[in-house]
């Protein structure tokens, strides 16, 4: 299959089309909307199902295999927010808050991109071509990047304020936001985290046997999951579509960043994955994770801790640029990279 054929088959999947459909609804100014509670229910279901399956798989895979991949995943969680912050701040001339806010999103990971990447690999390389512990890596990658970028932002702002104060001789009130410890608790107990980890623990305990009775309801390979994912992507398309108008406020640099960052991070992810001994399929998924930008866990954390960062920037970049880019172009690309690295 050529790269082009891959794009084509990727684009014609019900999920990608549902996303496109959502965008179109907004472009034609339709009143179409997914009820808030349906959206929340779908995301609870998808995250819990993801964790559950991950736990079941973990329950019969040797732990040692997990160590190296876990190390490189955490490395990705440290590197990507810093590389994002530096390029946004010094190449893109964004304010400290804006640069850190966007970096928090790119340092974390999008669960739907993860699912799409895994589906893509399974469709191309067949059953068993993705390591069973990938959802564990997803969990590891979710938080550190957000924390690192927030720390950069909060410390950077404090320093620039001290500089200003000592210059002017006046001491500004330090309108105290939530502490970073508070943010840790917030992130570790956020719905998405709790569902992933909780599902994983339950999956680990029940194992294959207990999973059997609810597998058709929760399993990624089953149509129930796919149907729910289709509806979820319709909603994502609606949200992305309502952000498209903001692309003009985002500016050319941010658009370029929203495409270049995933390519760079995706390549790094594929490379580190192969260093850690992952096969081509798993490298593709790890690359897609590194390349993706969070739009569920990161936005509230950033809004809370760095309200000075403009939400238009981070939401538009993560959801209206990088997410569709990865869905359509990125994943097949990281897949080619992974194949090339594996010597195919």
């Amino acid at each position: 299959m050529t790269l082009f054929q891959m794009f084509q088959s990727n684009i014609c999947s019900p999920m990608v089309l549902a996303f496109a459909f959502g965008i179109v609804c907004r472009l034609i100014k339709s009143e179409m909307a997914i009820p808030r509670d349906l959206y929340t229910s779908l995301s609870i279901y998808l995250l819990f199902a993801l964790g559950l399956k991950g736990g079941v798989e973990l329950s019969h895979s040797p732990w040692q295999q997990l160590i190296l991949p876990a190390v490189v995943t955490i490395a990705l969680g440290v590197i990507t927010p810093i590389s994002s912050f530096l390029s946004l701040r010094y190449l893109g001339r964004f304010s400290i808050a804006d640069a850190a806010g966007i970096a928090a999103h790119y340092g974390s990971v999008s669960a739907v991109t993860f699912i799409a990447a895994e589906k893509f690999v399974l469709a191309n390389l067949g059953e068993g071509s993705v390591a069973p512990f990938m959802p564990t890596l997803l969990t590891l990658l979710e938080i550190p990047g957000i924390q690192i970028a927030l720390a950069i932002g909060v410390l950077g702002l404090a320093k620039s304020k001290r500089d200003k104060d000592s210059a002017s001789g006046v001491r500004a009130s330090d309108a105290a936001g939530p502490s970073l410890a508070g943010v840790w608790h917030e992130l570790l107990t956020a719905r998405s985290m709790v569902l992933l980890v909780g599902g994983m623990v339950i999956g680990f305990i029940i194992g294959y046997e207990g999973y059997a009775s609810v597998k058709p309801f929760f399993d990624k390979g089953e149509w129930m999951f796919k149907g729910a994912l289709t509806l979820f992507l319709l909603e994502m398309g609606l949200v992305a579509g309502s952000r498209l108008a903001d692309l003009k406020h985002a500016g050319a640099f941010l658009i370029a960043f929203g495409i270049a960052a995933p390519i760079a991070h995706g390549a790094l992810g594929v490379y580190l994955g192969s260093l850690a001994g992952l096969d081509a399929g798993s490298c593709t998924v790890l690359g897609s994770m590194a390349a993706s930008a969070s739009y569920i866990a990161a936005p509230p954390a950033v809004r809370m801790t760095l309200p000075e960062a403009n939400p238009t920037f981070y939401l538009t970049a993560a959801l209206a640029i990088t997410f569709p880019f990865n869905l359509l172009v990125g994943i097949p690309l990281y897949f080619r990279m992974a194949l090339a690295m594996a010597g195919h």
Partner: protein
Amino acid sequence: MNTHTLTLLTIVAEALLKDRLIHEVRQAGAKGFTITDVSGEGSRQRRVSELLGDNIKIEVITKRETADKILTVLHKDFFPRYAVVAFMSEVQVVREDKYL
């Protein structure tokens, strides 16, 4: 009905501030509050509701000093950084002691 005059303080703010605002309201000494899910637009043109949640409205019946205390905290810590508005009016209640 014999009534007493108290202050109704209404705060409209982005939903993720809910816990922090409830904390401030209690801290200032208010005895109760009522919360409503709302949406809205203001000078900040925040169009982020899908991923960051909509707004909430917090209503507090209390004495004027307590309302002032809450407003002072809002003014210092919230107005400059978040999308928040607040306003006060007078209301008549029957059981004044319930709110003091």
